[in-house]
């Protein structure tokens, strides 16, 4: 089933931007998924090695939940949203919206989405889905990672909305409110690109932005110390591929998605330089994909010795240099 209460479901690359694009489409303000992602300046990089994590990891996008914030800021679209202390009140608020025919986005723990195959279920509190309707006590959920709308029982959805841990959703939900009659897309695109360039280049934190890519390149060489066995290290190497390609990134750690945004932006702004940079971003994505394939192959062969790690590290370092230059160019084009 692909439609419920007038809401039309589509498969998407990334849960959060796809959820927002779906809600906007339903509200009569169609923005593509790459446009939502790009205007919110959601491309990013961060390398994390904390005690909260069983193994060092990285992210290639901004913090979950921020896309809505920056779309509100840059496009003046209102997304009324709130968090809850009591699950009962959260469910009642969701039901009230659905009764009015308004689909709502909710933040959930991905682990409880029981319609996904067991092997891909993992605890991650930053997942977003759209609840399109409710029939006979069952919610119909539009999840960007599924081809069709999926049923989810009320108790499971409540558990997913009130999971604890990092990025705990606390029942967070939002819907589309007021959409300005004339969206100033051009200005929003400029601000979105400036935002992304700032966060990639100027954050004075050594594990975020381009510095984060360099940190990954450096720390990769230390990964054998973190892993208890060659098997574990090989598995973590394969997880690089999963993080870059399979976890709702649109390929190459969101770089292809961002290249698509830049191409659309070049058309809107009529800037040829932006189209050239879109091509460079696509090539940059190809190089990230080469990294993910290299990591997956070495992981599969259990060929994770120092030479291979050094090779991988050099490939990642080259991406840091390329992205530093790319975002500097982007900042100049929209200055």
């Amino acid at each position, binding site marked *: 089933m692909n439609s419920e209460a007038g809401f039309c479901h589509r498969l998407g690359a990334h849960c959060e931007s796809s959820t927002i694009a779906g809600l906007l489409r339903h509200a009569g303000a169609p923005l593509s998924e790459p446009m939502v992602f790009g205007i919110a300046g959601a491309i990013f990089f961060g390398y994390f090695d904390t005690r909260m994590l*069983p193994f060092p990891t990285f992210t290639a996008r901004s913090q979950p939940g921020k896309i809505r914030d920056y779309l509100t800021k840059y496009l003046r679209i209102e997304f009324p949203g709130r968090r809850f202390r009591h699950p009962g009140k959260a469910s009642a608020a969701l039901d009230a919206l659905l009764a009015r025919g308004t689909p709502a986005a909710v933040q959930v723990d991905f682990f409880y989405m029981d319609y996904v*195959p067991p092997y891909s279920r993992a*605890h991650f509190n930053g997942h977003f889905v759209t609840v399109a309707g409710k029939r006979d006590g069952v919610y119909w959920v539009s999840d960007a990672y599924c081809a069709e709308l999926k049923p989810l029982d009320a108790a499971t959805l409540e558990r997913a909305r009130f*999971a604890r841990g990092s990025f705990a959703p606390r029942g967070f939900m939002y819907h589309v409110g007021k959409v300005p009659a004339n969206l100033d897309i051009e200005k929003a695109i400029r601000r979105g690109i400036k935002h992304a360039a700032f966060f990639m280049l100027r954050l004075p934190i050594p594990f975020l932005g381009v510095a984060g890519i360099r940190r990954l390149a450096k720390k990769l060489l230390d990964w054998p110390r973190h892993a208890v066995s060659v098997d574990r290290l090989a*598995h973590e190497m394969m997880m690089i*591929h999963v993080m870059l390609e399979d976890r709702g990134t649109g390929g190459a750690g969101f770089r292809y998605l961002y290249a698509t945004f830049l191409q659309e932006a070049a058309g809107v702004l009529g800037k040829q330089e932006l189209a050239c940079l879109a091509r460079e971003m*696509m090539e940059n994505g190809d190089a990230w994909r080469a990294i993910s*394939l290299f990591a997956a192959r070495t992981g599969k062969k259990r060929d994770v010795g120092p030479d291979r790690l050094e090779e991988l590290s050099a490939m990642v370092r080259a991406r840091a240099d390329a992205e530093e230059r790319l975002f500097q160019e982007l900042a100049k084009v929209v200055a």
Partner: protein
Amino acid sequence: MKEEDARVDDDYQLVLYVERDDGTYGPIQTGSYMKAHYFADYLAHRRSVQESELEKLCAGGISPIAYYMTWLGLSEGDLAARVRISVRRLRKHLRPECFAALDLPMLQRYAEVFGVPVANLFQVLTSDSPEMRLTQAKTANPLVVVTRAESFSAHE
């Protein structure tokens, strides 16, 4: 990435953004490269982790909490936050002797995070026959599940 390079034949579908023949960029629905090429290795790794942890569990070296924590790839800090206890207290629960003293509400909190019935914290369900499948169905009683061994053919 060119559209033809992105095409993968697999049942696990996802969206990738690619360059089309006309030079424009856009989404395509395709199979997962990881799932198509490396899934067997991924499963083998999970199985080897599970087997080594199960050995420790059955030998009384770790508690079922430690077993599931490793199985799901959770850190101590994350699991402690999810069950709403301190890391210090969680570490005690990782030891079999402390696990035996846990009360039912605490076990329920763990079971909810692990996504298993409470009963599974005290038993290991396995099947040696590839034609047998074990299923667990919830009941109205949150403490009781119905476990069934069902036979199925490989063609199903």
